């Protein structure tokens, strides 16, 4: 009897398809590795010949340029190019994270609206999707940026909103909470949220009074919000605020939301939501009409039908393309450079690459960052998908 690793009798190993297959794969891998090696070698030679510095020594050199939005401490005189990298990275992450959440909400709403039986709602949603996804994102960003800048009043005529909030074409300025004893407040808040979640979990299985979703939600919210307020006022902890102050040219202090950030966020959310809406529509339509009819026949309400029957099945179809849309949004955030938002590409692949004159290293790092963003988003979504996927028996 032939054993799997042995060729048929009388056949030399080099004529055995199995060994040939293996040899071919090794050959292709070796050729690819060799090509990559040659490419790197040539690049290194050319860089050396044209006396371009190489290596990552620039990482610890003082940057010397200013960045308009910094989520971590950064100053031109003392911070390094490495620090500038982290500033840009965080700026990209924050716009991508907020954008993904908002685009998902808007996209689901539009997607459901496209299937609405109300003619007007359905038409409006269709118009939205067709017009938004057929205009290049860059143009939309420029549109939003100019719309934001032109719609808002100049600095001297700022809108003053309740609670010390200022709004003008330099940005939205919010009072920034100053925590006297930050750790304490955070502990109370976190505790309350945890309690609310546990409460919700326990009550979910109850019937009768506690079984009504409205009652449960109200109590959960009360625990999450009212509890910390009561505890903090009883213990006498106060939250002080750093209010934005009007100075000669600008607004000082407070929490600043740049118009560039808002424009980029609007552009990304509106654009990506159009694609998500189509994904959602496809998902919902993939659940056969018979299922809805059966659910209604069993006496489930329309909402229950949607929540318990349609959405869980639709999610299987929705998640993989939704993942692509999240990845697209993250990568599209690099268009920020056109409207002056200091994201990773603008700060690092733009200014740092140019000031250090080491574009090869800088671009490689930037590509690796986007690659790891995308791979980790994919990973999370794949885990989610695995949980939602149809279990076949």
């Amino acid at each position: 009897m032939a054993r799997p690793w042995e060729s048929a009798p009388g056949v030399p190993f080099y004529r055995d398809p199995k060994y040939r297959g293996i040899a071919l794969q090794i050959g292709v891998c070796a050729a690819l590795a060799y090509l990559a090696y040659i490419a790197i070698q040539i690049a290194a030679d050319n860089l050396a010949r044209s006396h371009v510095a190489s290596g990552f020594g620039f990482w610890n050199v003082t940057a010397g340029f200013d960045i308009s939005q910094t989520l971590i401490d950064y100053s031109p005189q003392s911070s390094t190019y490495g620090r500038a990298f982290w500033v840009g990275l965080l700026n990209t992450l924050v716009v991508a994270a907020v954008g993904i959440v908002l685009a998902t909400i808007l996209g689901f709403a539009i997607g459901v609206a496209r299937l609405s039986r109300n003619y007007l709602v359905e038409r409006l949603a269709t118009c939205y999707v067709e017009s938004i996804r057929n205009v290049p994102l860059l143009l939309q960003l420029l549109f939003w940026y100019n719309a934001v800048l032109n719609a808002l009043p100049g600095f001297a005529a700022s809108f003053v909103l309740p609670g010390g909030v200022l709004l003008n074409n330099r940005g939205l300025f919010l009072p920034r909470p100053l925590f006297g004893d930050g750790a304490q407040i955070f502990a109370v808040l976190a505790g309350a949220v945890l309690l609310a979640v546990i409460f919700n979990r326990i009550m979910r299985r109850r019937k009768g009074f506690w079984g009504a979703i409205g009652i449960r939600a109200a109590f959960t919210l009360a625990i999450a919000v009212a509890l910390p307020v009561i505890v903090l006022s009883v213990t006498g902890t106060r939250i002080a605020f750093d209010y934005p102050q009007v100075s000669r040219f600008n607004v000082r202090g407070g929490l600043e939301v740049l118009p560039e950030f808002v424009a980029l966020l609007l552009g990304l959310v509106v654009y990506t939501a159009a694609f998500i809406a189509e994904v959602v529509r496809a998902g919902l339509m993939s659940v056969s009409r018979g299922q809805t009819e059966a659910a209604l026949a069993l006496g489930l309400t329309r909402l229950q039908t949607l929540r318990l029957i349609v959405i869980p099945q639709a999610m299987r179809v929705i998640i993989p393309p939704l993942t692509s849309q999240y990845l697209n949004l993250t990568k599209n955030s690099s268009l920020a450079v056109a409207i002056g938002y200091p994201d990773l590409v603008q700060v690092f692949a733009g200014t740092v690459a140019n000031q250090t004159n080491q574009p090869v290293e800088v671009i490689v790092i930037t590509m690796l960052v986007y690659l790891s963003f995308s791979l980790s988003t994919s990973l999370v979504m794949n885990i989610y998908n695995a949980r939602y996927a149809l279990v076949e028996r």
Partner: protein
Amino acid sequence: MAGTSPAATKWDAKEFSPRYGQDFRAGANRVKIRRFKMRQIAQALCAAAVAFAAAGSVDAATLDTVKQRGVLNCGANGTLPGFGLPDSQGNWTGLDVDFCRAVAAAIFNDAAKVKFIPTTASNRFAALQTGDIDVLARNTTWTLSRDAQGLNATGVNYYDGQGFIVRKALKVNSALGLNDAAICVQQGTTTELNLADYFRANRMRLKTVTFATLDEALKAYETNRCDAFTTDASGLYGSRLKLAKADDHVVLPEIISKEPLGPFVRQGDDQWFDIVKWVHFAMLNAEELNVNQKNVEEQMKSQNPEIKRLLGTEGNFGEQLGLTKDWVYRIVKLVGNYGEVFDRNVGQGSPLKIARGLNALWTKGGIQYAPPIR
């Protein structure tokens, strides 16, 4: 496979036999054919690798490459009035543009043999280093790090400095009054660094808003996103003309940095470096000796030894550079001397009306000074 060798045809039927590999003679033959193919593939791979290697390297003799190509690839600005800007017909004008034309005139005796390639502040050096362009004439500041990192500044065709433009309504008359101001700036420039330095040195607070291109930064300033817009003073005059209401804006008197702007070449080709450097010096010497586009024919008959050396009626100075004896005659005839080029593009003959200032010849109170041709 059939037809590769006559022997193979004979066994063709067996090629389709499911008991593939049973017939030793056929198999041996196939192996031979395959080996032959492998050798071909290996040769092809080697050839590709060599071609790839050749394509990847930058040729050392730039002058020969340019002559062979028949056209000079010039990295220009594309958006800056007075320095590099194509008009609606696609005709390029500007001080830097004319510099490239002068180089082309010296090489080809034809100032039109230039291909202008618009570059951005961010991609200009990469374009030069990869050989996409032969010379970078794009209002680029000469700094130590640029010289050290694979580039060579060939001289200074415009002495500039960084300034600010603000709205008149702001009632600011000095850059020192800009504490706390939001300032729009183009990224990837020395401007960005000077700005941070200046505010740091004067203990002022700054809010920078950075854009990829000069036009985007200017547009943001115009929509009131920033209080001031900063770039090299020469660029400020040009940018001011692009604003809808130029009279509502004023250039502040402070010049906060030294910006010697000049053409760049890549390191490693001394002959090319010399040619580009001396084209600028030739244009300066021509102005100093009063050789201009109008009188250059007469000046060819001049008995002044300096003019004779300049125009090549005596000596072989152009040939020493790898050009022809009459290289300066070509430059002046086809493009003009430095003064003419300056006036036409940024000076009194242009909408910018920038005074010569530091860019006057050393004999006229400026610092433009060229070594002698001898």
